[in-house]
């Protein structure tokens, strides 16, 4: 149900231009109407005794986004918004309850044969959040890194495999002798480097990064973020980046999707999103960014907390915290609509009831 939007015609030209330049880049990943429901009911017997109904957690509900080749798309949101579930759906750790994931235009669900599936899996890899749980403590680092090589049968000879592992270790800033050691001999940041080396070992084109720096100290985070950018420039990697840290996302992304309780509120280019946030929830999130410029800006903290995702509010899930909510917001789920380069799911934005963003645009905007 897309209604023509006030204001969209004015900026129409710019939008068309932008859309055209975007269309030139090929899509790496397209996600359509993606949903994942979890049955979190109590066991059958307990349910019968307590006469409790089945409980369904809609972790992800009706998500749609595209990731262009060589770009970084980020999903941000608070805990429980479903962003990690999206990452797991994309790499096949969960089966979607509904919807399609298309990798280079090909629906992943259609790939059935083992050989095809392996050919596809080789091309994407995942980097995890917890550097202590993501490496098997009983394996030597060289075996950890070489696992994808072995599984996909990329290099048969042992000597070449060792060379490749040594090259990967050097690539991520470690030394080839480190391959002989076990994960416990490394710090958190070094473990995350090993994780990245493992992910790169099958020469993937697409990396799904689930909060890869959240468990790291800032100085180490900077090292890892720099490494990720270097690798992207060198190999033309495409990233799906999951994070709760807005500044990290701003630093890394080309395009950002903001999630709230399993749905996308707003999708826009990185600079654009931070300069002109549309959805009230995006505005709330931007409001929480700490003021490291020391401008003395007094923030007014937003009231309310994220509701329980098992019993989300009716209509727009954000309405209990939204200052612009009306009866329609309380009853009808807003659908994503295009508006000035943003895809926004908000009745107020659609009806033009939102005041202009009072969030100060980036203080030092880039020349572009």
């Amino acid at each position, binding site marked *: 149900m897309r209604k023509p939007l006030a204001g969209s015609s004015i900026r129409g030209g710019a939008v068309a231009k932008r859309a055209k330049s975007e269309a030139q880049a090929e899509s790496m990943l397209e996600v359509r109407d993606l949903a994942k429901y979890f049955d979190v009911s109590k066991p059958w017997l307990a349910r019968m005794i307590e006469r409790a109904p089945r409980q369904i957690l809609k972790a992800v509900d009706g998500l749609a986004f595209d990731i262009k080749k060589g770009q970084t798309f980020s999903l941000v949101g608070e805990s429980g918004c479903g962003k990690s579930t999206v990452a797991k759906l994309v790499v096949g750790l969960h089966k979607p309850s509904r919807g399609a994931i298309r990798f280079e235009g090909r629906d992943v669900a259609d790939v059935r044969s083992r050989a095809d599936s392996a050919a596809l899996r080789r091309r994407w890899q995942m980097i995890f959040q917890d550097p202590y749980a993501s490496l*098997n403590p009983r394996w030597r680092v060289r075996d950890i890194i070489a696992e994808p090589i072995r599984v996909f049968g990329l290099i048969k000879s042992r000597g070449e495999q060792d060379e490749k592992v040594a090259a990967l270790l050097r690539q991520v800033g470690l030394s080839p*002798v480190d391959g002989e050691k076990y994960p416990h001999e490394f710090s958190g940041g070094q473990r995350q480097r090993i994780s990245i080396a493992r992910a790169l070992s099958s020469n993937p084109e697409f990396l799904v990064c689930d909060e890869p720096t959240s468990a790291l100290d800032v100085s180490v985070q900077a090292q890892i973020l720099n490494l990720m950018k270097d690798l992207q420039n060198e190999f033309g990697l495409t990233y799906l980046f999951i994070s709760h840290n807005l500044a990290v996302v701003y630093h890394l992304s080309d395009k950002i999707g903001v999630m709230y309780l399993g749905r996308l509120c707003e999708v826009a280019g990185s600079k654009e999103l931070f300069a002109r946030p549309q959805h009230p929830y995006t505005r709330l999130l931007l409001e929480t960014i700490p003021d490291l410029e020391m401008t003395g800006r007094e923030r007014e903290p937003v009231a309310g907390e994220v509701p329980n995702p098992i019993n989300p509010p009716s209509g727009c899930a954000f309405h209990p915290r939204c200052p612009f909510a009306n009866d329609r917001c309380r009853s009808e789920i807003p659908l994503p609509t295009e508006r000035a380069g943003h895809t926004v799911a908000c009745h107020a934005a659609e009806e033009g009831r939102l005041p202009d963003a009072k969030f100060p645009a980036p203080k030092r905007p880039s020349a572009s």
Partner: protein
Amino acid sequence: MSDNPLGVSRPTSLLHRILDSDIFYSFSHSPITVLSAIVTAIFFLAAAFAPWVAPHNPFDPATLDLLDAFTPPAWEEDGSTKFLLGTDDQGRDILSTIIYGSRVSLIVGFSAVLFSVILGVGLGLLAGYLGGWLETIVMRMADVQLTIPAILVALMIDGVARILVPVHLRDELAIYVLILAIGISDWPRYARVTRGAALVERNKEYVSAARVIGVHPIKIMLRHVLPNVLGPVLVLATIGLALAIITEATLSFLGVGVPPTQPSLGTLIRIGNNFLFSGEWWITLFPSIALVILVLAVNLLGDWLRDALNPKLR
């Protein structure tokens, strides 16, 4: 030398790593553990090299002399230095029968533990990693079996197996039946521990990383999950060895274990029991002491291992 070098040190030799490890440190600083290890090692070595270690071969009829029967221990009035711990009713040297007996006890105990570890860890791993109806069936079976005392289960299996085995093979197969009976009676403990540990490991990200690249579930179980659940299983197996030896001794004492032709410690105690009230106390007492010392030593080792491998207690 530090425990966790920052990635700047060279890999060190295995021996060096073992001597430098926290586990070795905790071992060498616990006198009781060192003593238990020495005692256990003595039992193991004596059992393994029984034909060379034992002063007599108690099962070679040619060397037996009924005139030597009921010789008391060497320090008693009628004792002989030839038979340090005395002899039994057939003139067999008690020390030698103990050495040969612990050999049988240890073989049965070890094999039974191995059997239940393979069964229990295998089922526990499948249940924990795959979940679903398989988990429900395996774990309910384990629950049901745990409500029955292990010794009863072993007795039952032993009884059933004896009926199935032809008469002339009974003595020959008795030891295997015993291993099977004790092994089956003990698997639920391993299954439970393995399942619990596998449930934890299954959700760790290194397993996800293997799943992302499409490693087969069986391979993930064997190569990733299994090595990481073996710690608690090792502790359990050590204490399980002590339990299996006791179960074997109990069964043999009750007369359903190994036959008197190849007696275990339990059989020896039973045989000696007949003479306890006629004054020949040494026939039953010394095998009993041997059993207690062996079980205690293995148990203490197991206790130490549990504490040493538990990061919370360190």
